[in-house]
């Protein structure tokens, strides 16, 4: 375990063992989750020399979760070092507003990427990867969305600046703890071609409707042609 990892572990343990009421709960991430995310950023900083962090301001009108959720490669409670030790930094900044139950306004959230160099990732880069751009931070799984956004910053920065990635490692988690894949998804062809399926169904529907309509017209005409003529018809 590196000295930095040991420090983060101590910080996380201290936060977890804090006397009730002595430390304010983070508005979004749990202490352990924030510590893990900070460690991920610290690994990236060690490889790339770029500092990473997050700073999310939370306004909770109907609860008690007002506050700031922030952290960086320096630790789960420490902001990204804008001056001093890092020549370059990248920070995800955002805001979350949870309205009260009786408010007519909807919950809202947003996020942007702040940095001090022009080639830094943008929120559009993160969206290009299929990640939410910050609009879902207000949701129940906003903590997972926040973690996903922040964890993606080093990879996008590596691409843009031709910096090294953190080396891929086989899992070190015991097999009994690895778990099983869960969750079901649409068939891949349906996810890729749902619009073509809709078009096909529209064509089949329109063709079938026309077929029924014209068959009915043909039947009516045939029936009329077979009806004997009366004096009123002449």
């Amino acid at each position: 375990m590196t000295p930095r990892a040991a420090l983060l572990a101590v910080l996380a343990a201290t936060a977890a063992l804090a006397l009730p009421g002595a430390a304010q709960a983070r508005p979004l991430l749990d202490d352990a989750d924030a510590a893990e995310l900070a460690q991920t950023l610290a690994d990236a900083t060690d490889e790339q020399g770029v500092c990473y962090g997050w700073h999310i301001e939370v306004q909770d009108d109907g609860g008690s979760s007002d506050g700031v959720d922030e952290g960086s490669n320096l630790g789960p409670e420490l902001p990204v070092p804008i001056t001093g030790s890092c020549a370059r930094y990248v920070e995800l900044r955002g805001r979350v507003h949870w309205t009260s139950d009786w408010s007519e306004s909807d919950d809202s959230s947003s996020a942007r990427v702040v940095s001090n160099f022009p080639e830094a990732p943008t929120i559009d880069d993160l969206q290009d990867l299929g990640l939410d751009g910050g609009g879902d931070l207000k949701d129940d799984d906003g903590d997972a969305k926040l973690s996903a956004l922040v964890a993606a910053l080093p990879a996008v920065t590596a691409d843009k600046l031709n910096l090294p990635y953190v080396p891929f490692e086989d899992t070190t988690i015991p097999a009994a703890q690895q778990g099983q894949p869960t969750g079901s998804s649409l068939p891949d062809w349906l996810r890729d071609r749902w619009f073509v399926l809709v078009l096909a169904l529209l064509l089949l529907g329109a063709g079938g409707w026309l077929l029924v309509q014209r068959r009915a017209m043909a039947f009516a005409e045939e029936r009329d042609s077979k009806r004997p003529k009366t004096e009123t018809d002449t």
Partner: protein
Amino acid sequence: MRRFALPAILIGLGVLTLGWAVGCHQSVRAYLDDHCRYTGMTTDRGGHRARGYDCPKAPGAMARAVRSAHRPADARASPSGYFLRYRSDMVGILPGRRGASSSRALLADERNGYGYFNNYVGGWWGTYSGPGESFRGGGPGGGK
């Protein structure tokens, strides 16, 4: 019979379109076979197996290309690379061994992929008992 020509044409086009949508879909494996160089099966320390590929684009560009061709059910990015999940497959796109403009793709079935990439997708795409389990997603459609 002329009155039935238009409905017949529409139905015919609908059947052809439906057949194309279902029958002519290329799998993500076929995409990697076409766009990258297959380098053989790899096995990690836990015995999980994956097909290896050397790809001609940087990891981010390759991830976007694969996503554009085959929309994944879920995607994750980490400082080590990009991970895409499909119904039956998982793809990891990592830095290549041939410079900055290359990448290495690992394609595994769901079971092997979850083990191979467990450090990065564990808990997000399935059950998990390791660190940070409290906020991980549990897979597409799996809820929190």
